[in-house]
């Protein structure tokens, strides 16, 4: 606890190797001087995700954040072939993919992560120079994606994802150089259905064709030998070898050894370099016994490569609580050799080709979360929260408004119910009023006179000028015509008539009743001083 307090700057990371047999995990931290300390380690069957998760929970307390992880993945489908290439043509975009398609019958190399390494130094090959051998290393993107996703599901952030065999070859090559051993080393990888031998010699890595016998052939041989038909039972026995198994071990591995031997011999014949040790990679502790009989069948010696001796030379230390790590740990630990620690919460660096020799990062950086992950998650959470809050506010507002309207509606309905009788009476009165008004309108339209005749005639009489005499008044619905005579000289009579007409038009009791009042006839009579006239009044209400 106290040490944790003083080591806040040191962040623990995880080392993971997934191979055909098991998943190896180790927590490690790096000190300032570059030493890597393995603090804990565990081995789990590939299917046992529960135990792995439990181990991770126990070793990494802050499991809510991403745990930086260095990953090694050993795939039976991985491409690792020595091939002559023209580095100059590497600038052509399709050169490598076409080469892979033609040479290794890979249908869609565009969806593969391909790297070229020097088979001797393990360094990337620059796109220049003449024909030279190269180690073509590749993994299908789909497979990489699957591994990455599996890591992410465990909340592990892959800072590196390497095809496991390459750093192992690097570690073995380094050891060969340091031990000054002139003999080649054969790395044997026994998969379920085939066995791959990679020869590490003075001319670098050689990749002979894989042999068609794998661990299944060992199982079959053992089953035949012990007359056991149950596959699980024989596998269990092989994983827990007793004396009888060890006694007959050479028989079990004979099929593999018999096919590998000519491959090795051929290498020796071709290159003139003798082959020394056989290193069986990735075999779990329970199957480590296979290495010795296999080497024996091939007429070689099994590797004595020990993690304990190798680790100090590459800056790796093992904590006091870690059990002894077997040779199968060299694969994953080789990823840590000369490694610079991933820094805290920084983004997982994109893979670069200017990295350590014998190390190839095949991560699909685009598929990985980055430092903006928290931001993105925070943003997504905030956005979703805001939207949810808005939706909730909207819902509350709508409920409030609905309730408010309902209450108001109830109030109005109560008010109306209270006044309903009064309103009904009033409605009835209104209907009666309308009916009676219609009746009155009928009477009015029939009997309403445009003017009162007696009043009109009396008013007309009051306006008569001197010397004027009315002889006839005729009235109808459209007009009123009056005829008369004016006993005055013509000139004066015409002036008198003009004035009279004006007077009629402006008389309040006469003028407003008519649209026009005009002289429609005027003539002198036999008597020279008498002028007869006719005045027509057009009614406003004329049809």
């Amino acid at each position: 606890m106290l040490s944790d307090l003083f080591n806040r700057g040191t962040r623990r990371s995880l080392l993971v190797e997934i191979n055909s047999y098991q998943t190896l995990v180790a927590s490690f931290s790096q000190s300032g001087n570059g030493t890597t300390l393995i603090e804990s380690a565990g081995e789990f069957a590939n299917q046992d995700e529960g135990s792995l998760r439990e181990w991770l929970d126990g070793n990494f307390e802050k499991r809510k954040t991403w745990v930086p992880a260095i990953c090694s993945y050993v795939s039976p489908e991985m491409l690792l072939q020595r091939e002559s290439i023209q580095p100059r043509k590497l600038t052509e975009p399709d050169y490598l993919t076409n080469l892979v398609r033609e040479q290794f019958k890979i249908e869609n190399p565009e969806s593969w992560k391909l790297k070229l390494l020097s088979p001797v130094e393990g360094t990337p090959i620059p796109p220049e120079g003449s024909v030279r051998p190269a180690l073509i290393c590749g993994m299908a993107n789909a497979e990489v994606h699957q591994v990455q996703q599996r890591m992410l599901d465990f909340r592990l952030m892959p800072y590196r994802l390497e095809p496991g065999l390459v750093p192992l070859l690097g570690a073995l090559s380094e050891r060969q150089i340091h031990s000054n051993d002139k003999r080649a080393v054969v790395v044997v990888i026994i998969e379920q259905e085939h066995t791959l031998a990679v020869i590490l010699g003075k001319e670098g890595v050689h990749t002979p064709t894989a042999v068609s016998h794998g661990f299944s052939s060992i199982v079959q041989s053992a089953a035949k030998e012990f007359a056991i038909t149950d596959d699980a039972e024989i596998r269990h026995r092989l994983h827990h070898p007793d004396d009888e198994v060890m006694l007959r071990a050479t028989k079990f591995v004979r099929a593999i050894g018999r096919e590998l031997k000519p491959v090795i011999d051929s290498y020796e014949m071709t290159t003139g370099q003798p082959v020394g040790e056989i290193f069986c990679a990735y075999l779990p502790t329970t199957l480590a016994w296979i290495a010795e009989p296999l080497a024996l069948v091939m007429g070689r010696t099994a590797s004595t490569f020990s993690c304990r001796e190798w680790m100090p030379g590459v800056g790796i230390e093992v904590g006091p609580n870690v059990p002894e790590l077997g040779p199968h740990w060299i694969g994953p630990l080789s990823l840590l050799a000369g490694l610079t620690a991933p820094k805290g919460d920084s983004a997982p660096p994109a893979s670069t080709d200017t990295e350590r020799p014998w190390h190839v990062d095949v991560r699909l950086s685009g598929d990985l979360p980055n430092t903006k992950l928290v931001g993105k998650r925070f943003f997504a959470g905030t956005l979703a929260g805001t939207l949810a809050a808005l939706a909730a506010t909207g819902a509350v507002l709508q409920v409030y408004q609905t309730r408010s309207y309902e209450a108001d509606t109830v109030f109005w309905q109560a008010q109306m119910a209270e006044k309903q009788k009064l309103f009904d009476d009033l409605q009835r009165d209104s209907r009666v009023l309308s009916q009676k008004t219609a009746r009155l309108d009928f009477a009015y339209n029939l009997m309403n006179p445009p003017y009162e005749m007696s009043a009109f005639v009396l008013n007309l009489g009051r306006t008569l000028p001197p010397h004027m005499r009315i002889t006839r008044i005729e009235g109808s619905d459209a007009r009123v015509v009056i005829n008369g005579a004016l006993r005055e000289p013509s000139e004066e009579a015409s002036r008198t008539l003009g004035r009279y007409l004006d007077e009629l038009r402006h008389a309040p009791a006469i003028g407003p009743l008519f649209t026009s009042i005009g002289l429609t006839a005027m003539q002198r009579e036999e008597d020279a001083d008498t002028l007869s006239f006719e005045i027509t009044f057009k009614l406003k209400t004329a049809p």
Partner: protein
Amino acid sequence: MPVMKQFFALVARRPVVTVLVTLFVVLLVANYFLWQQRHTVTLQHEEVVRRGLEVAKALTDQARTKTDLTQLQDALAQIDRSLVVEGEMEVNLGYFYKIERLSRVRLSQLNQLSALPGPDGSPYRAVPFSMHVNGTYAQIMNFVHQLETGPRLVRIRTYSFVRSADVKSKNLDLDLTADLLAVQ
């Protein structure tokens, strides 16, 4: 179903966002139904308020309506009292003769003419009469005035007012057609 598997893995990795998004979707659906409910309630409310305002306005006009109705009933009662019956010619002509007597004119001709049917739905019709009246200016004006303001509703349609043919006489002749309001 790898898609479903990926989906559930995503949900497991983002529980908070998943819950919030689910909540948002649920609330969105709830909002839709609440909006529909609110819309219905709003329409009901508008209808009730409209009717309520109508009632309030009607109740405000109650006094005026009552007054109007009373006045109208009086007017109609008056009209009903003044109505004549087309078939009762002797009564109708007698009305004119009564006025003749009071105004001292002479009704030399008095005829009840055929009445046209009233407008559709009308409870009334107009019964026309034609008459020739002789008398002094004052007598005739008195006659016309009594006709216009008498107990029967009369509308004078046409008239012709001339001096009498007898030059020595100061009498006037009046040819007049008038309608009396009658029941339909």
